[in-house]
């Protein structure tokens, strides 16, 4: 789990949404993929498609790509694989707001369940501010996968706090 690569991805996404781009790519890792799928599940991004250095075909981005369309990862092409993300905008504002790393490579922040519960209720804890603004999200890497903080509370698991979206 490379948090420095993740922080690069997060600052890249911040730059991309400021530039109002519709499609971007990030390096393909398991951590990035899981986080992107969690973001897609919450409606922050529209598509997550694995592809090569060039963007995938439009039907793969828009529809449901079948396994024939997506090139499987092999030892020969694993280094060139990238995740292509479709970004969303609503009323000319990016849906994916300002992202911020919570854990850093130098200081990893973990949250146990009681802390997370307080954070979700909107209270501050020593290392985490409460989720008070509408639509604010916190992503946590747990042993059950990368989840949003509210889902973590529902599933009763804490973990490493990755990033926050305002």
């Amino acid at each position, binding site marked *: 789990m490379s948090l420095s690569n993740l922080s690069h991805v997060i600052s890249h996404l911040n730059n991309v949404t400021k530039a109002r781009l519709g499609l971007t790519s990030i390096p393909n890792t398991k951590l990035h993929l899981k986080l992107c799928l969690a973001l897609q599940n919450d409606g922050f991004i529209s598509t997550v498609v694995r592809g090569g250095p060039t963007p995938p075909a439009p039907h793969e981005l828009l529809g449901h790509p079948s396994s024939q369309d997506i090139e499987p990862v092999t030892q020969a092409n694993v280094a060139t694989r990238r995740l292509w993300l479709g970004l969303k905008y*609503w009323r000319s504002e990016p849906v994916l707001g300002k992202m911020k790393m919570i854990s850093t490579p130098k200081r990893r922040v973990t949250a146990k369940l009681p802390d997370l519960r307080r954070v979700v209720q909107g209270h501050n804890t020593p290392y985490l501010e409460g989720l008070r*603004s509408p639509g604010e999200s916190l992503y946590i890497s747990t042993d059950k996968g990368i989840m949003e903080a509210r889902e973590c509370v529902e599933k009763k698991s804490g973990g490493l706090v990755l990033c926050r979206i305002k």
Partner: protein
Amino acid sequence: MSFTRPARCMLCNFTRAASAAPRVPRRQFHPSPFRLNDQKPTDSAVPVAAETPKTNKEAVVKQRLQEITRNMKPESLRPYTEEELAQLREVYSAAQMAAIEAGEATIDPKDFAEQFAVRTDPMRLKYLDDFSHVEPGVDKHVRASESHADPNQKLKNTEDFMQDFSKYIQEMPRDMDSAHFVRWAETTRLTKGKEEAERSPHTSLAPDFFQEGDKLRVPEDEGKEGLVRDENVHRPAISLEGISPPLAQLIQSTGLSQDYIKNLFTKSLVFHSVTNQTRLGKVQRFYCLAVAGNRDGLLGLGEAKSFEAADAIEQAKYRAIRNMRPILRYEQRTIYGDVTAKVGAMDLKLMTRPPGFGLRCQSLIYEMCIAAGISDIAARVNRSRNKMNTVKAAYEALLAQRNPEDVARARGKKMVDVRKVYYSGRVF
């Protein structure tokens, strides 16, 4: 204005310069002076016939057409010969031929010559157009008529109904049932003329539009007769005489009534003198920053400068009223989430708080919250604490709130306020 130009140009910009040489001295690429476009060529003595030895058929046709249209006379129009009519009959049907002949008979050759000739008068049009279709960029909009009324509307007589009925019988399907007849009888029109004049006519019970100042009935209007007037709207019938000119202008531009403006919360928050250093000396004026609000979700800021202190305050308040904008309020008491704003070196944060918390913030933000009708808030002002920028940043922060409904629509997710669910919506 440039003094390098001759004096006659100061009087009229459209007059041509005295000489064809450029006014601004610049390098000439050719020894002969350049010619302006609208000058007639001096070598126009070349005969026209010399230019048209083109044997091209198209050019000949074009020239003939131009000749005809330029010197069109009623004598040059002649009726169709029998041969030409025979040729036309091969192409057109009998009905079309009848129409052509009727058209020929109807149009006076004199009119035709006048209409068909190319105009040479100074009022002629600069372009060719058939005017048969509306061009959106050029022509005025064709708007839908304001009312459905048709002056040519007439009741159908017995013959018309007989025609309708015979048409129905002819077009009747084979497996016809009684419902088909009932449908026909219900949809058959009783009048001639525009269809919408019969289908949705104007009635005095449901007038087409609200008059100015009318509003929909709300539960508080129980027992009132007729149309309900909106008391907040200024009625043009009431004269503005005797009111100070700035206020009269405000009433005219906003359409708010004088009572409504009087009941608004206005307050001057920042007031100081400002000085402009000119070469003539210091020019001192008074600056005022005021807020206005209706204590129910509207808030505006206004700035004004004036030589008179009272003028500056009055003008700032009126500008604040003019700038009033709706502020999002959660449960009509606090804001949606924590919002930050940055103006200059100000870094300001407004925080949502539970019911009964009160306004625990500094005085300027307190006044703004009172004006907007916010009763629970906390604020933190970091870095600079400039008064003017504090007010501006707080206004920006209040406007920067995100509506949860917008967030939900943007993400395509359903969001529910659980407070409203738990207390069956009775939270305030």
